[in-house]
């Protein structure tokens, strides 16, 4: 589904990603862990198509297509979803409206008729349940005036509506208390299917107790220095990042 080969990318002339290789197949959950500043968000943003980052080398193929050639909205319409580490506030637009516009953009791209606000309400009701939210949240403005935890939950609500094939969750766990974390993890797990995949970016192992990964990769200074199974996350938690950093330096 996703094949990243020797990806180098940076911003403002500084290289941040220094040769990433990663393959994600349908049905898999990959976790990317790493210390702050290692380039996790950069990877997520490059995958989503943020123009602030320049790719200087390497390729990314998504479902056989050259992902880097696609516009951000083309990627989204092709089923790629990135939950932002820092969701952007859009004052003046309600969640209900935003979700419907995004949902209809997706339908239009598939040659389907747009849904009207009433029909959309039926659909959204069910999606709200996946994140255990009441309909009040629909009348709130997109992320504006929301707490950090609410914003993260809102990202997952968007994900539930858009039903992506590949979701990249960038530190969706940070800022969540344990109850919210469980709800978000449950919501994500409910969306798992054999034909979709997840890339879960996190700083802490905590989330991976609930969204259990098939593979764990450790990103340090723009490189994946270690990959393994889910037990790698526990090892990291016990020993800290210095342990892999040394391993990375030694290799």
């Amino acid at each position, binding site marked *: 589904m996703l094949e990243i080969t020797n990806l180098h990318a940076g911003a403002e002339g500084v290289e941040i990603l220094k040769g990433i290789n990663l393959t994600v197949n349908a049905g898999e959950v990959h976790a990317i862990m790493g210390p702050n500043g290692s380039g996790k968000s950069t990877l997520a943003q490059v995958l989503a*198509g943020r123009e602030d980052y320049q790719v200087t080398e390497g390729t990314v193929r998504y479902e056989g297509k050259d992902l880097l050639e696609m516009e951000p*909205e083309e990627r*989204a319409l092709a089923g790629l979803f990135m939950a932002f580490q820092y969701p952007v506030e*859009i004052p*003046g*637009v309600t969640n209900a409206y935003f979700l419907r516009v*995004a949902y209809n953009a997706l339908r239009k791209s598939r040659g389907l008729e747009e849904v009207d606000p009433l029909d959309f309400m039926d659909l959204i009701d069910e999606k709200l349940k996946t994140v255990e939210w009441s309909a009040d949240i629909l009348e709130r403005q997109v992320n504006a005036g929301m707490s950090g935890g609410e914003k993260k939950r809102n990202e997952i609500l968007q994900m539930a509506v858009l039903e992506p094939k590949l979701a990249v969750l960038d530190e969706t766990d940070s800022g969540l208390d344990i109850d919210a974390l469980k709800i978000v993890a449950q919501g994500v797990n409910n969306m798992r299917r054999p034909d979709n995949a997840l890339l879960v970016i996190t700083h802490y192992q905590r989330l991976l107790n609930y969204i259990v990964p098939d593979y764990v990769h450790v990103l340090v200074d723009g490189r994946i220095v270690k990959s393994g199974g889910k037990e790698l996350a526990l090892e990291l938690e016990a020993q800290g990042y210095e342990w892999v950093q040394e391993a990375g330096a030694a290799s």
Partner: protein
Amino acid sequence: MTLASYLQDFEASAANGGGRPEWLMPIKRGAIDRFEALGFPDRNNEDWKFTSVAPIARTVFGRMAAVDTLPTAADLEPYLIGPPEWPRVVFVNGHFVEALSTVSGLPDGVAVRTLADAIAEEPEFVARHLSHTASVEGNSFTALNTAFITDGVVLHVEPNTVVEHPIHVLYLTDARVGEGATYPRMLVVLEHHAQASLIESYAALHDGVYFTNAVTEVSLQAGSRLDHYKIQRESEQAYHVGTLEATQERDSHFQSLSFAFGGAVSRTNIYTVLDGEGGYVTLNGLYVVHGDQHVDHQTRIEHAQPNCTSHEVYKGILDDQAHGVFNGKVYVHPIAQKTDGKQTNQNLLMSPRAKIDTKPQLEIYADDVRCTHGATVGQLDDQAVFYCRSRGLSPAEAKTLLTYAFAADVLEQIPSRPVAQYLERLVMERFLGSREG
């Protein structure tokens, strides 16, 4: 040059029975004398520093001729607001069109008349109010309008009377009959504890060069409430200067919402004097312009008595090489203690060539007041555009959504749902048109 043509025009129409009735003539003559003395304002005039009226001054605008064929009900459709039973008064090229107007179903105590009828039927009432609130002293355009008063609308609501539906006064212009000027004149008198909404809208049936010079005088007596909408969607080749002046007695509430989309050069003045304790005014506005348009708003709030509140939010969206001007004055008299004044002007520049001159102006002569003001100029937030695109919206859809969101809090102030819907649609069409254009 052109000054002389206005003077000639005036004398010709005075000789031609335009002086009727007799009591009006001194007012008109006084006004044309003022206009002659003032001339058109130039950029040295502090009130016109950022707006040149040279294109108006150098064109000879005679009286707008009447149209040969009146618009049909279908032609009117795009300009109508709310359900058909709402009262409306339609003018085409400055001439009242009875066939397109309906003012039935108004409650007792509410009179909606053309100014011409009111002058004939209620001369004492008109004489008592006309040219009292809107001063010809320092304002050339008000002077010119006053000199050429012919028609318009008088709304008079008696004490404790509530008018349920907004009254829509629609000034349409069709410049295919040739260049010309119209001078709409409105008089609004709400007696104590009366309530009404008035929509004053200006639109072009066909694009063309013409000049609208409008004056509205509002007198709000104790405890009355007026919601006033001005919707300016003139031709983008046309010139528009419109002044509204209000006086507010104790505990009155004036809510003004001004929307400007049209005009090559347009200027809207909204002035109010809070002349009794407990007065409340909200001035909200939205201007959305593109191409070579120039749009100017000047507001003036005079706190002349204690314990009054004024809240003002104006927003502007400027695309291409459009130029916007906002000048908001708040003047607090020495006796106006406990004044609460809040003013903001926010602008969104959609293109690097678009320009805004914004000048909030507070003059405070009382010491126990709470007054704030602020102005911002910005562009669309790249992060927000990217966020929308990452959810599948095209760049154009993202921009439309975010621009609309910027305007949203002004649109949300609209108390009447049908009026809000009409304006939401206009704003939306405007953004979409702007994107394609």
